[in-house]
């Protein structure tokens, strides 16, 4: 079959990023056709390579599912940027690239000569995207935000969860996976288009603080316009009742293990949806009470109403329940764990998860392309690279070094 043209075919990306926000963005560029060289170093290892899960029975830098899922389809170059020759080679890679990306801290970017002044001197047309935590100027410029620190700073912890709990957050480094890589991808694509029209590159700064705060805009706006400090309020929504997750029968009868819990999310936004839910529950007496007959009445007695629903779902299997409720026009969805996500028939039919053979992990699942283009569908073209897998290839084919030069650099510890 003839290879289809992908939108970014011919676009070259120098990916000097690590952890989540940078590598995911660059992976999406690779998925739609760009040639992406991921620059790493054994002396400055991407911590994700050291974090579980590791493929069953395997250890080392190449078997982390966390790392691998964000780096499919990239070429991997190891380069010690603490050496002068390493920094020179970095500039040669910049000269080759259309897009440069980094989420290193401003201090490290400066130390390694990767500031916009430096990279644009090497390549005036470069699109250089920086993802500092806080921005390249300002009093908190050098504050750190790895791991779970950015999520509380940007407001998610204060606003998530139930009021009787502390600000525990969302259980993940939430903005790292869609919000920050996604915003950066948008900025890069806009800049690529502008460059195509005008020949001009530019500097992009996607400060993760600013990018992550945007999705909480309504809460910030409520403060600046009304002076109200919103609090966390659990799972409710002012204009929907019910609007919550309801516990179903455990996966193994009688089990109380967390992994055996099953939940269904149910929400009603209108009288019609509520009436359909009541029908679905078999019109129990409690639900016929006149106080549940209007939206304000349901909201006023929300706790009682949700207790009634919980009692009804407690011995049900959530998938069948979801199918029945959706068929009746009631918004409902199983609260799926990763186990259910991987087995989800709908996702399977759409081919969302992609299974790739990797030399060290064997076959494993990757998140597929984030969006689908009908005529130029993106593809994960290769599994995540081994650390330094393409160092010699990149040196010869992209940086145009001779075999002798490569051998010398290897001996000098520049390519590690």
């Amino acid at each position, binding site marked *: 079959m003839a290879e289809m043209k992908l939108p970014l075919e011919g676009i070259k990306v120098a990916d000097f990023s690590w952890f989540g926000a940078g590598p995911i963005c660059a992976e999406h560029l690779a998925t739609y056709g760009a040639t992406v060289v991921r620059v790493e170093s054994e002396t400055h290892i991407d911590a994700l390579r050291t974090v579980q899960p590791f493929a069953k029975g395997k250890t080392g830098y190449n078997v982390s599912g966390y790392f691998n899922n964000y780096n499919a389809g990239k070429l991997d170059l190891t380069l010690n940027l603490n050496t002068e020759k390493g920094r020179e080679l970095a500039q040669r890679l910049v000269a080759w690239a259309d897009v440069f990306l980094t989420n290193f801290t401003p201090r490290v970017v400066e130390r390694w000569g990767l500031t916009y002044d430096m990279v644009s001197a090497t390549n005036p047309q470069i699109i250089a995207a920086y993802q500092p935590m806080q*921005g390249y100027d300002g009093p908190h410029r050098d504050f750190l935000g790895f791991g779970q620190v950015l999520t509380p700073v940007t407001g998610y912890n204060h606003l998530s969860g139930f009021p009787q709990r502390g600000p525990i957050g969302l259980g993940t480094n939430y903005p790292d996976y869609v919000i920050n890589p996604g915003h950066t991808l948008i900025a890069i694509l806009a800049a690529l288009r502008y460059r195509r029209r005008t020949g001009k590159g530019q500097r992009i700064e996607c400060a993760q603080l600013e990018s992550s705060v945007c999705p909480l805009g309504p809460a910030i706006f409520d403060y600046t316009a009304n002076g109200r400090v919103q609090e966390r309020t659990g799972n409710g929504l002012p204009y929907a009742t019910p609007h919550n997750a309801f516990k179903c029968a455990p996966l193994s009868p009688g089990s109380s293990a967390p992994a055996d819990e099953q939940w269904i999310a149910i929400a009603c936004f209108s009288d019609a949806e509520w009436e359909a839910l009541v029908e679905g529950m078999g019109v129990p007496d409690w639900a016929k009470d006149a106080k549940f007959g209007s939206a304000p009445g349901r909201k006023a007695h929300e706790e009682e109403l949700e207790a009634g629903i919980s009692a009804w779902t407690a011995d049900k299997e959530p998938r069948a329940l979801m199918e029945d409720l959706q068929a009746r026009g009631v918004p409902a969805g199983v609260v799926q764990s990763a186990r259910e996500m991987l087995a989800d028939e709908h996702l399977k039919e759409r081919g969302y998860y992609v299974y790739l053979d990797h030399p060290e992990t064997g076959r494993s699942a990757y998140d597929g392309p984030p969006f689908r283009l009908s005529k130029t569908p993106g593809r994960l073209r290769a599994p995540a690279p081994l650390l330094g897998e393409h160092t010699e290839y990149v040196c010869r084919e992209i940086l145009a070094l001779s075999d002798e030069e490569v051998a010398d650099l290897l001996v000098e510890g520049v390519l590690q």
Partner: protein
Amino acid sequence: MPEQLPSALDDVRVLDLAGEIGQYCTKLLADLGADVIKVEPPSGDPVRDLPPFYHDEADGQKSLYWLNLNTSKRSVTLDLEKPDGRRLFERLAATADIVVESFEPGYLDGLGLGYEGLARIRPDVILTSVTGFGQTGPHAHYKAPDIVGVAMGGIMWLAGDAQDPPNVPPWRQGFISTSIVAAAGTLMALYHRDIHGEGQHVDVSMQETLSIAQETAMQSWDMLQSLRNRAGERGMIPVNFPGIGAYECTDGWVFGYVGTPGGAPWSELLDWLKEEGAAEDLTEEPYLEFCRDLGVRTLVEMFQDRSKLGQGLQMLNHVDDVVKRFIAARGKWEVYEGGQRRRLLIGIVSTPEDIAKNPQLRHRQWLTAVEHPELGETLQYPGPPYRLAETPWAVRRRPPLPGEHNAGVFLDELGVEPGELERLRAAGVI
């Protein structure tokens, strides 16, 4: 307001038919300079009725939720379900590069305005469809408010304390994430069109968008059949660990991630406690040695040698209590800024007020003033997600009133006769 800034998208017209799930997508395009025309039903976009409201006045012009999603856009009203409305939309669609919609799959096809129909009018059109489950598959027609998306997309399972139901993330995170992915998909298709002249249909699913935000959960099940469950503040850490998690201060909370890669080691926190006279018995053995390089690796070692696990956990709990007492006596900004100056991974748990007053965001003038003559006020809007040096993000105009640009778009740009427009208005088409 700055309408004449250089823009990456100033030659692009977008028709915005989208509901809540897609309006942040079109906002992103509009704030980068695209001419985004909202096509609202004659009764107005129902999202205009959602709280919170300016001064709590429940009025379709005053929804802060809606205003935040609709900066830089224009608005026309038009009833797609009436034949005259459809004809008018077709004239508009002939001028559009991009259409963004979020109807149930097949709805626009039923009106003759699906991808095939639009491509007959405008062969290189890009149609971006933003829905809960995408255009195909057995769940394509499921109703998908945000809560259903975050449930079926795997992120709700991971959020919350084990004693509570799984948590719904605040402020429609499923919708926002899907919009971000939709904007990226739209620009990817636009870049392809610029080169090859070919439009296409972009299919974006909330469920698929959110999957990657499960962090390591999907891979853990795939590789090890090990299930990550919601674990409150600890995330991936299996036990109570000093310096990790939420700590209460005199005036709020901070959140620590001390002892993990990327920040100063635990010994730095110990030094801080010592300098402030708050280290208690951590300066003595066995704690002194224990705290020096306390980190995630300590845990790995403890779990490898189960015989020492009980004692290890006791020590962890004691150290954690000392940290709790230290932080409880201080203010949240003091702990945040003081900790960060020592390169300790500690963050303030910001309230919306803290964000509005954050010195970094203020220095960078993140909040963005937008004049609202109809309110007689200038409102401070949430600001840019990114800064492009040559083609800046900007709020190019305040969000529109319903149908504010009917005359400009229909009369001036499409050349509809004034009499015809009057007839359409009388017939309830616009």
